[in-house]
């Protein structure tokens, strides 16, 4: 609890010059360039510290990315048909969305944002439950406790602090849970990001903070979020190990996240990963991206497609062939067809359920208001009957 004045434990400056101690910060700094295990043509690059994940995992990664993209396209289509109020697409970010959730266990906790519908589907959540929020039925359609997946978070960066608390609470209760907190590049500017990472660091909570730097916060480019060489350089200021990765390289994302999760699970505290990627679609279907970025940029990124890259690699390894690829595509089509069908049925939501979960038991004030709404609904139904 007491602290020692610096000079007691530090060598004097003169001595230091003679034999400077290693800078403790070094170990926390990210690689100065994003880690990349596949180049843009899909060829393998060796990077120390990042062994290639098992081939089975890569095949599964590929499969989920294909299904994930199909899900994403289907969801965007559903907005056009008025079946979804809004959809924030993750197309282009498949390596991040799928790679990250594949790096954690079912018993780990995931803290997603609005952007992570694909990640959640990839984690095995029911796509209809995931889309409940965006269809406008209720705020969260899945059971977060059962799925160990927090509600998709809209107030930016607030979930990072929850992840820290959850991870610390789990550890305190002797469970080896890791918390995976998703966050966007823009949201790193929020104070809550700072507080979330710092709490995790101070309490050595097993959290992986995973920044998908897709270069925009709605319309605002990265240059307006930070003057840092890279967002991963924020780690050292918290005493948190960090890394940056090519977010369109699925192998690298899975490898870096696997290392980060292992680091956290082993009790070494949190880990910060920044993935450099790009969203191919507008912010949501309601956004007009042509106002702030040009087609050439989008096209250039289209050439760095993460699915193509992994497919090339796996074909090269002989793990995938035309038939396997076709089978996965068929599976994705079936997935989308099923989703379409199920999204065609509009569930009704009981208006009186509005009063059910404000508190564990309604206050007298809510009981009164509930009674008033009940009476209104009954009167309306009666009027309808009379009219009909």
């Amino acid at each position, binding site marked *: 609890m007491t602290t020692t004045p610096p000079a007691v434990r530090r060598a004097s400056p003169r001595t230091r010059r003679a034999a400077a101690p290693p800078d403790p910060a070094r170990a926390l700094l990210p690689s100065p360039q994003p880690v990349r295990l596949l180049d843009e043509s899909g060829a393998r690059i060796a990077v120390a510290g990042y062994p290639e994940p098992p081939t089975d995992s890569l095949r599964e990664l590929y499969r989920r990315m294909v299904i994930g993209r199909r899900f994403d396209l289907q969801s965007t289509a559903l907005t056009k048909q008025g079946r979804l109020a809004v959809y924030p697409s993750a197309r282009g970010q498949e390596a991040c969305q799928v790679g990250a959730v594949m790096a954690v266990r079912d018993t780990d906790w995931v803290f997603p944002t609005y952007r992570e519908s694909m990640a959640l589907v990839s984690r095995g959540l029911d796509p209809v439950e995931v889309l409940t929020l965006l269809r406008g039925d209720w705020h969260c359609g899945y059971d977060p406790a059962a799925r160990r997946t927090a509600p998709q978070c809209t107030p930016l960066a607030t979930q990072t602090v929850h992840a820290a608390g959850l991870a610390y609470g789990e550890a305190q209760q002797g469970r080896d849970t890791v918390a995976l907190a998703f966050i966007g590049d823009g949201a790193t*500017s929020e104070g809550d990001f700072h507080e979330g990472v710092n709490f995790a660091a101070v309490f050595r909570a097993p959290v992986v903070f995973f920044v998908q730097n897709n270069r925009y916060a709605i319309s605002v480019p990265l240059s307006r979020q930070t003057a840092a060489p890279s967002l991963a350089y924020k780690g050292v200021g918290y005493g948190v190990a960090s890394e940056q990765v090519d977010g369109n390289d699925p192998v690298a994302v899975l490898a870096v996240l696997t290392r980060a999760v292992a680091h956290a699970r082993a009790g070494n505290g949190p880990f910060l990963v920044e993935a450099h990627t790009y969203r191919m679609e507008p912010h949501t279907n309601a956004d007009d991206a042509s106002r702030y970025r040009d087609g050439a940029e989008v096209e250039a990124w289209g050439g760095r497609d993460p699915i193509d890259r992994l497919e090339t690699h796996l074909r090269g390894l002989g793990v995938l062939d035309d038939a396997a690829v076709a089978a996965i595509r068929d599976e994705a089509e079936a997935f989308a067809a099923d989703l379409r069908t199920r999204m065609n049925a509009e569930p009704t939501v009981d208006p009186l359920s509005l009063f059910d979960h*404000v508190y564990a038991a309604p206050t007298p004030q809510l009981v009164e208001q509930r009674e008033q709404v009940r009476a209104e609904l009954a009167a309306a139904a009666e009027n309808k009957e009379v009219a009909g």
Partner: protein
Amino acid sequence: MGTVTMAKALNAALRDAMADDDRVVVFGEDVGQLGGVFRITDGLLAAYGERRCFDTPLAEAGIVGFAVGMAMSGLRPVVEMQFDAFAYPAFEQIASHVAKLRNRTRGALSVPIVIRVPYAGGIGGVEHHCDSSEGYYAHTPGLKVVTPATVPDAYSLLREAIADPDPVVFMEPKKLYFASADATLPVTTEPFGRAVVRRPGRDATLVAYGPSVPVALEAAEAARGEGWDLEVVDLRTIVPFDDETVTASVRRTGRCVVIQEAQGFAGVGAEIAARVQERCFHSLHAPVLRVSGLDIPYPAPKLEHVHLPDVDRVLDAVARLQWDDQPDPRWLAA
């Protein structure tokens, strides 16, 4: 000028204010190149350049605190909070600095900033995008709280807010952004602190502001069929409050319903009801009733119609104004 939406009127107010006073600067999230998610700042960057209109890092406390500092340097910042609930991260800066700096320094420092907050519901927005947060600001001394319900007021009140020496939280009813009206801009309407009788009536007074004003007017129209002639008062500014207009109306009509979208408990409507009964006690034939949002978190789009005050709910309240001079049986039973 013909037909103008509220969004365009707000845009014109910003544009004209920037033209008239080069200390006026506009900033926030997505207000530059994109022109704001509601396009209220559309074209300002092109017209006035990066120095006058710019995007900031994504951090609301930062935006408001930065505005405080810029105001200290002599500028007149107008900042946009993207949605109501996303102003909450700035709450400390607003409550502890924006509202208090003049007072703390005996007037040596002032904070002539405008915090624009698109607020309230009715647009099918997902959670955290539809809060009615005016009550938090109205309860904070040192802030002025303004909310237009008409296109001319949107223009005029925003111009006045920017020119005002005090900080103004300017609440913009999202659902009215694309409602249009015949209006000629620029226009000057009644100043801060003046409520306006939007529809005269003899039998009861509906007090409303912002997004509830059209509901009140519609209800008054519908009430004609039931034989009630209702007066509608549009507050326009919540702080300062126009006791005079409200009190005069209720003294005349003897009955009053207050309408707000926000959850009711300890909100602005409670204040209005408390003030009206205090000042009009001997003119009242019935208690002042309130129609407000339910005391629940803002619901998902599919159920927001259950939450929001609508014409039926207003008429129900009017019907309970003891026209037969009989006490409300609901409260006698209790």
